[in-house]
């Protein structure tokens, strides 16, 4: 049992802390979209130079072999600074899935430049009637000679407009085959038949709906015809990362709120002297620390057997979703009317923390997962 960082991890945390602190906060806050260009931002290039983009990937695919704790350190720092660079959507989720499924040739073509910061990718998994279920896919892949034809639609594909290519989940729909199988296909963004409808999310992320209308692909576009287990593993990594990011943002919200309470005076005294506000602030702190524990649980569960891993991951996401919303709501309340304004940094964190629940499955969704598997003993 050990909750301490290694020397390397301490250095990683310090490096990130400095890097994030150097970013001008409000201008870069996630409610303001990064420019719609596929050129990596200067910060992303710095990430690449520091090896941060290599960190969460195995050495066998060209990564640095970081573990769940390394990933947690990175995501906590990015969450703390509300850094808009799409580490999760543009790098981690598509990269992790690629690393699990790609042939050496596919890796060279797509994963290596991803880790070098030369391009970003996107993962298209969500469909309109599927809510958060990664296995409920109606987009279909039909064998067409040596290649494939894809039909269907995806929604909320984060960062698709900035991505050099999109990984798309599709049901393998060949005659006489096992129809339960999930495939993953790689579509360069210029693929004919693939159209994007771009929009921002309320917390300032660039998203797209995709329509796949008779998209013709050659055989090399297929990463896997049987990707269900790999998808589960990738989502476990993604959810652990997301929880850590939320913890970072929760911590920043607590710090900002505490500083505000000490500074703001009413009735001739700092707000921090009022017991009702003190206890509310302590409740935020309690939620933060309990959520941090769950993020640690998630980060240290990634190498467990799938059923145990996914139980803990779901528990962590369900728990952190509730905690994040609590912290966001209290942060706004304790800032008073100022907390309602776009000008106030805490409002941007609040949007991120509330909408955090809508990414990769919300509290109700994951609570249901835990409930279905609750041991009776």
């Amino acid at each position: 049992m050990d909750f301490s960082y290694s020397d390397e991890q301490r250095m990683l945390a310090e490096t990130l802390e400095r890097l994030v602190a150097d970013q001008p906060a409000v201008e870069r806050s996630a409610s303001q979209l990064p420019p719609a260009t596929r050129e990596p931002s200067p910060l992303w290039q710095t990430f690449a130079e520091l090896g941060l983009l290599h960190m969460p990937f195995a050495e066998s695919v060209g990564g640095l072999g970081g573990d769940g704790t390394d990933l947690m350190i990175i995501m906590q720092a990015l969450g703390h600074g509300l850094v808009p660079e799409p580490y999760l959507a543009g790098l981690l989720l598509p990269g992790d899935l690629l690393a699990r499924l790609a042939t050496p040739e596919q890796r060279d073509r797509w994963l290596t430049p991803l880790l070098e910061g030369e391009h970003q990718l996107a993962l298209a998994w969500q469909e309109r009637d599927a809510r958060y279920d990664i296995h409920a896919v109606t987009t279909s892949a039909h064998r067409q000679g040596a290649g494939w034809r894809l039909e269907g639609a995806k929604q909320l594909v984060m960062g698709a407009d900035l991505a050099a290519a999109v990984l798309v989940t599709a049901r393998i729909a060949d005659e006489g085959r096992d129809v339960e199988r999930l495939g993953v296909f790689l579509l360069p963004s210029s693929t004919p038949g693939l159209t994007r409808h771009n929009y921002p999310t309320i917390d300032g992320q660039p998203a797209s709906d995709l329509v796949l209308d008779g998209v013709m692909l050659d055989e090399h576009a297929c990463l896997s015809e049987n990707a269900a287990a790999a998808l589960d593993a990738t989502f476990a990594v993604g959810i652990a990362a997301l929880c850590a990011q939320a913890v970072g943002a929760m911590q920043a919200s607590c710090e900002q709120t505490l500083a505000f309470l000490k500074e703001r005076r009413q009735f001739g005294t700092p707000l921090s002297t009022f017991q009702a506000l003190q206890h509310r602030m302590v409740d935020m702190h309690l939620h933060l620390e309990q959520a941090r524990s769950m993020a640690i649980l998630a980060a240290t569960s990634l190498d467990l057997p799938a059923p145990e891993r996914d139980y803990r991951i779901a528990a962590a996401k369900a728990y952190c979703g509730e905690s994040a919303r609590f912290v966001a709501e209290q942060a706004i309340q304790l800032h008073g009317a100022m907390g309602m304004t776009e000008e106030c940094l805490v409002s941007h964190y609040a949007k991120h923390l509330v909408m955090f629940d809508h990414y990769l499955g919300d509290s109700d969704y994951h609570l249901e997962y835990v409930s279905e598997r609750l041991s009776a003993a």
Partner: protein
Amino acid sequence: MNLTFTAEEQAFRHEVRDFLATSLPAAIRERVRLGRRLSADDHVRWQNLLSQRGWLGANWPEAHGGPGWSPVQRHIFDEECAAAHAPTVVPFGVSMVAPVLMKFGSDAQQRHYLPRILDNRDWWCQGYSEPGAGSDLASLRTRAERDGDHYVVSGQKTWTTLGQHANMMFCLVRTDPAAKKQAGISFLLIDMSSPGVSVRPIITLDGAHEVNEVFLDEVRVPLANRVGAEGEGWTCAKFLLTHERTGIAGLGHAKQALRHLKSVAAHVQQRGRPLLEQPSFRQRVVKAELELMALEVTNLRVIAAARDGGVPGAESSLLKVRGSELRQELSDLTRRALGPAALPFFPDFLHADTELADAEQREAAAASAQYFNRRKLSIYGGANEIQKSIVAKTILGM
């Protein structure tokens, strides 16, 4: 970072488990399992067995006859004891006055009292709260005036847990009425058989006799029974409040309570199905499970910090708040799970030796009384609101 116990720690867990399986008397185990009250003899019998094994002073260093366990080992021991339905060791001697004596007591006091605690010759109780001094403990008014080589102590203590069995009390008294609130307080050891000491039971809402009022009427206490210097009693009291509080979350008890809740809810039928399979009740259980998972990791974080030389201070306030809330929630859910079976009240079964023939009534008998009893968890040892004020002040600097 990892959450796994070492091979040595796991071996230790098995050693504790084996000891509990072979040494805990079945009758005592069954009384604890059913939530029945233990007699003084039950407590002493179990604590003698622990003492013989060398495990009574779980938090004591080897120099004083303890096993010298790490915080992790103590945590494992607590968990296994709760899982095996072992009685909780009465804390007032072993884990409250003993650390104060080790830190502030004279050689003579240590030589006299520590061995007597370790072999259960003395039963200690705590003389802290007064009718006018609860959360505001430093406003206590029991006074001690010097008369030769004695103090003459007069006043009233209350909420004295298991004081009816105690022969010794450690007591906060005011030795200097002119000094500022905390400054005039001293820490005295009082023989409960001294003339002028009387104990009156307070019956709590669950029908239990757990706490007492203690009246002190011109009780003569030798000066030699003062721990630390005169006027430094508050330092002892504060030390006690922050000392070794890694067990404060009651995690072992919470885990056991959740296991019990699940077994009740899996057994109880409603409209032809187990209650545990019904969505609204099941969701409450799931939420308690998640809270327990989070609390367990938070608890391990504090234990690891203590093991690595940190002093568990205000973090233990967080554990106390969340741990007490969770245990209260679990006792609430267990009572609700039992439904109509939670209504009958059999005090003679719970408190005395009258048996209940009906097995179902026997299993359900303690649930409601325990629910009411558990309300104390957020009140004693510094009410949760006090804990929050401590966190606001010491962690958040408000």
